[in-house]
């Protein structure tokens, strides 16, 4: 029988994978992918908890997370475009003019 923990652990693993992506990626677009992975991992958790508690709140939360992710993508891509226009690159190492 698959319990709540099973789902949660999968969620945790995917979350960590997302974290690994965030850590290692230097390309901004790829970085965004990684954050999507993390949010999706959380969604699994919410859906699972919701299921096992027979409570809808979790699904609500997951639903809003999807909405948030969508909005973030829109803004993120907008920023990506202006940045790309200015720098001609999406490599994080190439825009570090502000430091110290």
């Amino acid at each position, binding site marked *: 029988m698959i319990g709540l923990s099973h789902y949660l652990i999968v969620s945790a693993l995917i979350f960590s994978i997302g974290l690994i992506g965030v850590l290692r990626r230097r390309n901004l677009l790829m970085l965004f*992918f990684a954050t999507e*992975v993390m949010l*999706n991992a959380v969604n699994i958790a919410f*859906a699972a908890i919701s*299921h096992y508690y027979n409570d809808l*709140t979790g699904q609500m939360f997951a639903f809003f997370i999807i*909405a948030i992710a969508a909005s973030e993508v829109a803004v993120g891509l907008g920023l990506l475009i202006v940045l790309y226009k200015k720098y001609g690159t999406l490599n994080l190492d190439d825009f570090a003019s502000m430091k110290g």
Partner: protein
Amino acid sequence: MYEIVAFYLFSVLAIGLFLVTVMSKNVLYAMTSLAAGMVLISGFFFLLGADFLGVVQLVAYVGAIMALYSFAMMFFDATRDIKEKNTNPALVFLLGGLSAVVLVMMFAAPIHSDAIQALYPMHEGVGNAQDVGMVLFTKYLIPFEVAALMLLVAMIAGIILAGKKMDQSLTEDIGADDEILKQKDEK
């Protein structure tokens, strides 16, 4: 039984696909595997009886978001392999591994409690969409509307950031200052 099989199958596949997403050098591969992973996640949702969520996942994520990403990918012409100087893998996997260990430890704890009363219970014999709709448009109407506002914000942001007007910066253009100021300077 089929639940167990599906769970493990989805889990392994999803983990594998997401690993590809974060490890691949090719944007196309990464994006494709991300999309595939998301489909699998919607599979989890169906498995968990969250039909509505599963559909939203498919429509919004796989449909809308991934389409956006594809456009972006085309814009950046990123079909080729990208050159990344990735962060020191030892650090990355140490941190990722540690976070995985701790999170797994957390979730392996007896977190599930039967004593917890569902505040917004699902109803027997009622479709998930109906259930969700009921809660969404009563309890979560305000967040829902705020989410609408958020999407509006995102839309405006997307439009003006990607717009042509951004190409010529007034901030950095000294000549763009008001006429009055120019006259002042001349004096």
